[in-house]
């Protein structure tokens, strides 16, 4: 490990950290070192293990193996409380603030100063005084008595930082702190980070904005697929960071077959949703799989939900088979032949309490009913047909959907859209939470669907999956489609560079 700019003592050393989830090794023998006064930037793609590592440090997860040393002493962190007591403050993207309470109450939450000799009575004067002192020290113009919910996002973040200072945290972790901030607010944040450095704290900073790295960081540690890759100075060229993040072998074979694309099936033009989608346009043809890549929060799910009518659109037009369709509700999209296989099958794809048969017919009850009365025989027969053709493993179509495994549930959602004769199938993270064997089956189904003339739009955070299955790839960033890649351009470096707004770095 190369250490740079590390003038201070080592505050935190994590080594050999391993964390397994059912079916996945999220972290495998990962290490990390933070010195006093250092800002360590943690880099990695979606799913590289950054958040998991920080959750272990913050006490939200337990590592299966590994050692955490604070100032040379090994420590056990079994709960978020332990982490706080040890001087580790983690600021998550979703703040841990009670928005109805005041700034000072949030800063001292759980550590409220008491009036001596009067048990349980809060010393408000002292609380205000000490909060003021911290805010002044960080040069933050916030009133300690202000209600947190009425502050902007940036100021709420400052309250979180003030809390970590008041708790005397040696280690402050910030998970994508700038993702919701304006440029001006980012400058203010960087200034506060400098204050923390000057106090001798160690800061761990997770970000996807590579241009920030040299501005705020001193050292960079890169993770990839749950493995430690390297630690380099923050002043290294940005192209180096990208190379370290993607240098991965494409070992897995994808059952991809080239299909001669047919007529254009879906076209969207200038889709707008304020603050979420920005002038998004694309088209997809029969027989084609269009991948949509991008970082978490880039607007990919929002894009496909808007096309499906699940979320409201401010502007834009949607065409199916060349004819414009007004999509205001999922019903409109379903009628036009669009089906959405959502990211979270349990909460959005299926009614888990109901049977497989009922879930299959849910989007097209008209085919199995007359005058509103269901023909239960037809409902079951149709479901049995799909159980056979999609090889859905279940002893009976009357089983509730909740009894199925992830991959099987995904097939039931697919059956629902095949039953409603969808010709545009939108897969949002098609294999999330699905074990390896079932993943291949999902890919095979996608391949046979496009062979039969369907058009597939696939949102995925797994680059190998995007590259292995797509004919073309759109890259999204900040609600806009920033790149369309096909053929030789379709590689990990190009996709990641576009997703992180660094296209020029690898364009040559």
């Amino acid at each position, binding site marked *: 490990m190369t250490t740079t700019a590390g003038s201070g003592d080592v505050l935190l050393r994590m080594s050999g950290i391993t964390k397994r989830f*059912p079916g996945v090794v999220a972290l495998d023998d990962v290490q990390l070192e933070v010195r006093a006064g250092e800002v360590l930037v943690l880099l990695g793609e979606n799913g590289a293990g950054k958040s998991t590592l920080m959750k272990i440090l913050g006490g939200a997860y337990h590592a299966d193996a590994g050692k955490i040393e604070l100032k040379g002493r090994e420590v056990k962190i079994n709960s978020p409380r332990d982490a706080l007591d040890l001087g580790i403050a983690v600021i998550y993207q979703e703040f841990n603030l009670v928005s109805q309470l005041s700034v000072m109450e949030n800063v001292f939450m759980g550590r409220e100063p008491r009036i001596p000799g009067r048990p349980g009575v809060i010393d408000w004067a002292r609380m205000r005084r000490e909060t003021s002192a911290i805010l002044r020290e960080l040069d933050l113009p916030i009133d300690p008595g202000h209600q947190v919910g009425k502050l902007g996002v940036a100021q709420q973040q400052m309250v979180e930082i003030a809390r970590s200072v008041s708790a005397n945290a040696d280690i402050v972790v910030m998970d994508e702190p700038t993702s919701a901030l304006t440029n001006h607010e980012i400058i203010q944040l960087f200034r506060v980070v400098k204050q923390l450095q000057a106090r001798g704290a160690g800061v761990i900073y997770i970000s996807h904005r590579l241009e920030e790295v040299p501005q705020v960081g001193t050292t960079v540690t890169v993770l990839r697929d749950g493995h430690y890759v390297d630690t380099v100075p923050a002043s290294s060229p940005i192209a180096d960071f990208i190379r370290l993040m993607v240098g991965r072998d494409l070992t897995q074979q994808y059952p991809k077959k080239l299909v001669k694309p047919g007529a254009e099936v879906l076209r969207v033009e200038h889709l707008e949703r304020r603050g979420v989608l920005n002038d998004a346009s694309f088209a997809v043809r029969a027989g084609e799989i269009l991948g949509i890549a991008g970082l978490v929060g880039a607007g990919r799910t929002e894009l496909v939900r808007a096309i499906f009518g699940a979320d409201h659109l401010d502007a834009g037009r949607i065409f199916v088979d060349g004819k414009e369709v007004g999509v205001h509700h999922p019903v409109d999209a379903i009628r036009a032949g669009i089906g959405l296989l*959502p990211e979270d099958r349990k909460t959005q794809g299926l*009614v888990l309490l109901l049977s497989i048969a*009922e879930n299959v017919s849910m989007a097209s009850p008209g085919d199995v009913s007359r005058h509103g*009365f269901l023909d239960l025989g037809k409902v079951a027969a149709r479901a049995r047909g799909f159980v056979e053709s999609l090889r859905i493993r279940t002893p009976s179509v009357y089983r509730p959907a909740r009894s199925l495994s992830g991959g099987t549930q995904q097939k039931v959602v697919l059956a*629902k859209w095949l039953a409603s004769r969808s010709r545009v199938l939108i897969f949002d993270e098609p294999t999330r939470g699905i*074990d390896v064997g079932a993943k291949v089956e999902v890919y095979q189904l996608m391949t046979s669907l496009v062979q039969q003339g369907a058009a597939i739009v696939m949102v995925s955070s797994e680059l190998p999956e995007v590259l292995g299955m797509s004919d073309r790839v759109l890259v999204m960033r900040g609600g806009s489609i920033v790149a369309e890649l096909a053929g030789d351009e379709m590689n990990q470096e190009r996709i990641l560079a576009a997703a992180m707004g660094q296209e020029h770095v690898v364009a040559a």
Partner: protein
Amino acid sequence: MSSQPEPGAAVAQSEERRNWTEVAFQLGALLGLILLIAIFAFSSPSFLTTGNLAGIARQTSVNALLALGMLVVILTGGIDLSVGAVLALAMVVLAMVITKAGLDQSIGLLAALLVGAALGVGNGLLLTRLHLPHPFISTLGMMNIARGAALVITGGASISALGGGIVKFIGNDEIRLGSGDGAVSIPIMLFVVVLAYVGFYFFLNRTVVGRHIYATGGNPEAARLSGVPVDRILVLVYTISGLMAGLAAVVLAGRTDSGYPNAGLGFELDAISACIIGGTSFFGGVGTVSGTLIGALIMGVLRNGLNIMSVDTNWQTVVIGAVIIAAVYVDVLRRRAGQSR
């Protein structure tokens, strides 16, 4: 990251077991009912007489009808606190149409159903259009509005002597089967209740809309993304609940030959209790017509039996409270059984 088990023997087995526990829970309410009847039959010779059973039918009918409406609401994860007050308003409107306007009882009946349905639509729109945070609030408001309106239009006085006609027929008449000592009198309202239960059974199990009610309660977002018109379903279930309150008002008006603004006080809680005792989940998506019938019968038999055994009415209230808590605890156990996988 998924923690679902592989589809395998172990899962299939636990599935079987849970199906059995579900059957046991469903049977549990029925067994409870049978046990109650047995206890009362042994304790009092007058319990199992045809006269007393007809009495139970009469006392249970109104709650049984309200509980059906409440069932479809709770199936969507909602609640309708207004049914008792809606019943009162529908009842006094019915009485005023007949006595003050001098119209035929059939017009009074239609007016009662219309009032019930209209207030139900109001409940549905408050929820889906004004986006009030929970139906507890919208129907709590509607409860006060309906009760207040019933008091305002009657000046707080009850209206009696509704005369003869369809309302009296439904609420008060009987069919005599057989003759002499073996004759059995079956209240007409019992036929109304049976008809309603059979109709609701088919509606909830066999129609597209019925299944959409279960889907909406089981997972509103998945239902919406499958093209289920969730908002329309919600308006519909409150309309049905209001309509059933109107029908219950007809039965009660016929039985008492009157309309009074304080009718139906607390009836909403009895209807909710019947659903809950019958195994309807407060979280939506789970509940049956047969369970609701059993729940309503348990409440009716319990009240009647305790009366026959001359248990103090104040103590009766305590007993019913305990039964409700026990039934909800069963619901908790059932949910836990469903989760422990």
